[in-house]
């Protein structure tokens, strides 16, 4: 009964979305206020209906209703409750439902919170949002129904993969989706602005909080996923340039560009058509990411052939949304007012370089991710594009960007005084050069690029802090006046400082943990001693530990340094008898200087009884990867609380009623 209610709610939601997709936008074209205002109740109703459907599916998972195919395939009665709940979005169908739910929540949020957005823009935005919704709801109902029943119902579910039963992994998709889908609102705003034919600073202000919210969620989602890979997979890596990672990283890169170009549109009225284009492309990449991962397209182009109906639908949706919005863009964008002029050396110029480099970086990642697919489709050759490709193409684009990032916030709008900026930065430049020499001297091994990247991160961190201290006149005026200034500086500017510093901290982590890591893999017996990165590690044997639904062999590793006890590491090898699978639980000793990371497995054959394969790593500074990510997220959140950016706070100065294209 409950699944049928879900199914029914989903169908009603589709109807509502169709109405919401037609009536308000038609009303906007005919200047009919009642039709335009219908966007708000329909958006709210759609959200409620999808929430009911989602609730119904979640209930089926919670009570393990094995008459539902989706539950059978993705759950098991013995799963802990948290993972039953998380199973709701674990499958293709469930994740689509979650996606659509977030889409509807965002739509309802714009409808209810965006009080000050002009009625026509709001109506058009919500209609566009409803088109996306219609696409997804119909895709779900026609090809991927989460409520399909099975008869006779099996006694228990199929899925009990312990590797995926992890809090980090359970929370990772929702955050990632909030990020992906958050960009849908920006997309809808962009398309609505194109239809309306005007983009102005007020538009950029309405869009910015949504961009920022999506960006924060996406940053958090990516960081959480990489953290999960780090501690759960037992490899000690946090980023593999895996296609699944890349498709979430591309919207992030482009979203970051969008965040910055929207600032120019807001403050200077320039970069308008570029901001619109970025909004369209960012969401297009989000769509691509969702579909590519969910369709299994990345494992092979042949996955399409397996389910042609689904494949065709996906392709159709992508072509319609991306192609349609870009066509609209091509027609409308040339008529847009290019906005204020600026000298090459100016804040605008700096942000232009930011956007150019971020777009190029996205292009290289996109190329590396899709190239194998194209090659296989055309020549039949099966290749994979590995980390060496991305390291050689992505990093050289990002390093100049980080250098410019240090200077950018010092530049004034329109025309900046570069010698003056360098004068204010002379100490920063001096310290950066010193640190370059120090890192170079300390580090005999490791690539030269790593030394350079380290110095660039020092540069970014110091330049960011310098800009912040100048802003509050730290040391120039009395401390209490500085504190007063600290309070008066807009939150968004504190947010920028925090996020830029966060990126610098991240880079320390990226470089330290990848360029200077030490790794040992060997067979160990009780008593075996290993020396790694100044630590003396003794393997003392294993203990059997009985867990709630697993048996674990726990390795005991005594870690000493200079003859003194440091810690005991206890990596686990868990065997789940019901699921007939095993997992590796790494033991990690984290310090600010670096992580000592150990994992064990049994050797794969019997002639090595009593021996264990031990993998032990020392990764310098790896903790900074997540500290920096946290700073990025907090920076975004700080910026989001800026009074000037509150959703819908700014009012448009000029009347909106008749809005011709603001041509030249």
């Amino acid at each position, binding site marked *: 009964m409950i699944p049928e209610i879900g199914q029914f709610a989903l169908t009603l939601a589709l109807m509502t979305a169709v109405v919401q997709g037609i009536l308000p936008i038609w009303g906007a074209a005919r200047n009919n206020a009642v039709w335009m205002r219908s966007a708000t109740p329909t958006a709210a109703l759609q959200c409620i209906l999808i929430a009911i459907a989602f609730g119904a599916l979640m209930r089926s998972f919670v009570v393990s209703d094995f008459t539902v195919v989706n539950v059978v395939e993705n759950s098991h009665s013995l799963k802990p409750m948290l993972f039953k709940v998380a199973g709701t979005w674990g499958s293709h169908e469930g994740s689509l439902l979650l996606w659509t739910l977030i889409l509807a929540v965002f739509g309802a949020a714009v409808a209810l919170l965006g009080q000050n957005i002009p009625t026509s823009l709001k109506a058009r935005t919500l209609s566009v949002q409803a088109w996306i919704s219609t696409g997804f709801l119909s895709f779900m109902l026609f090809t991927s129904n989460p409520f399909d029943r099975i008869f006779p119902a099996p006694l228990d579910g199929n899925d009990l993969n312990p*590797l995926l039963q992890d809090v980090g992994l359970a929370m990772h998709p929702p955050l990632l989706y909030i990020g992906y889908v958050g960009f849908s609102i920006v997309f809808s705003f962009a398309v609505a602005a194109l239809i309306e034919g005007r983009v102005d600073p007020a538009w950029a202000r309405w869009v910015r909080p949504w961009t920022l919210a999506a960006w924060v969620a996406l940053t958090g989602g990516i960081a959480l996923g990489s953290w999960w890979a780090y501690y759960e997979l037992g490899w000690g890596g946090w980023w593999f340039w895996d296609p699944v990672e890349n498709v979430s990283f591309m919207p992030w890169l482009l979203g970051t560009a969008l965040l910055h170009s929207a600032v120019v549109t807001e403050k200077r009225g320039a970069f308008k058509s570029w901001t619109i284009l970025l909004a369209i492309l960012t969401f297009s990449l989000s769509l691509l990411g969702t579909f590519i991962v969910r369709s299994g397209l990345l494992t092979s182009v042949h996955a399409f052939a*397996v389910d042609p109906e689904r494949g065709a639908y996906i392709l159709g949706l992508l072509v319609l949304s991306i192609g349609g919005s870009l066509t609209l863009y091509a027609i409308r964008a040339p008529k847009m007012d290019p906005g204020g002029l600026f000298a090459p050396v100016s804040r605008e110029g700096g942000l232009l370089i930011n956007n150019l480099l971020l777009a190029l970086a996205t*292009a290289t990642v996109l190329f590396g991710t899709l190239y194998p697919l194209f090659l296989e489709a055309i020549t039949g050759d099966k*290749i994979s594009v*590995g980390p060496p490709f991305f390291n*050689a193409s992505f990093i*050289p684009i990002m390093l100049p960007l980080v250098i410019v990032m240090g200077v950018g916030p010092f530049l004034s709008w329109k025309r900046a005084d570069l010698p003056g900026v360098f004068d204010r930065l002379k100490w920063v430049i001096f310290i950066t050069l010193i640190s370059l020499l120090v890192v170079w001297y300390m580090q005999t091994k490791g690539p030269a690029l790593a030394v350079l990247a380290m110095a660039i991160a020092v540069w970014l961190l110091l330049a960011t802090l310098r800009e912040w201290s100048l802003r509050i006149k730290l040391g120039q005026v009395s401390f209490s006046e500085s504190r007063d200034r600290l309070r008066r500086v807009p939150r968004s500017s504190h947010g920028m400082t925090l996020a830029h510093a966060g990126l610098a901290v991240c880079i320390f982590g990226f470089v330290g943990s990848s360029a200077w890591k030490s790794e040992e893999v060997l067979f160990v017996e009780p008593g075996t001693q290993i020396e790694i990165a100044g630590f003396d590690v003794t393997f003392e044997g294993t203990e059997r530990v009985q867990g709630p639904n697993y048996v674990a062999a726990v390795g005991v590793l005594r870690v000493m340094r200079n003859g003194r006890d440091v810690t005991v590491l206890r990596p686990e090898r868990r065997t789940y008898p019901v699921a007939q699978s095993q997992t590796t639980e790494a033991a990690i000793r984290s310090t600010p200087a670096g992580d000592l990371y150990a994992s064990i497995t049994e050797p*794969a054959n019997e002639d090595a009884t009593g021996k264990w*394969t031990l993998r032990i790593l020392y990764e310098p500074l790896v903790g900074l990867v997540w500290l920096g990510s946290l700073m990025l997220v907090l920076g975004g959140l700080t910026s989001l609380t800026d009074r000037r950016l509150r959703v819908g706070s700014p009012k448009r100065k000029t009347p909106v009623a008749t809005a011709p294209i603001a041509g030249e």
Partner: protein
Amino acid sequence: MMTLKKRRRIQVIVLAFVALGIATVLIGYALQDGINYFRSPTQVTEAPPPPTEKFRIGGLVTENSIRTVGDASVAFSVTDGNATVPVVYVGMLPDLFEEGQGMIGLGSLVNGTFQATEILAKHDENYMPAEVIEALEAQGVYQGGRQETEIGAGNDS
């Protein structure tokens, strides 16, 4: 005023093209050693790639072939039913690595032995790497069946 506007616009376009050119060069350069071909054991035996080339090999782990070598290496062989290639790997095998199961390794062929730097096993119970399925199908060993769920690759046999 108009001319300055135009000039700025041209400057931006030139800059964009220069950047695009640099990116293209970078991509071309990165492609030289950034991509790895996939080869089945049969292809490797018929036309062994030079030891300088990194590639991926995939197939089933031969039954009773896993041995430990020295103080850290694992040796086993990988087969597609027709040809078998010995593999040596230093490192920890993934959780789902088993004899008779699918695997993919990244590495190079040195003196007839595949020296792996990375080993991937099927990443859940239902899923077999698509390349492995095709390599097996090419030798007529693989008959679809239990791999349809979830990703659903390769049940068109």
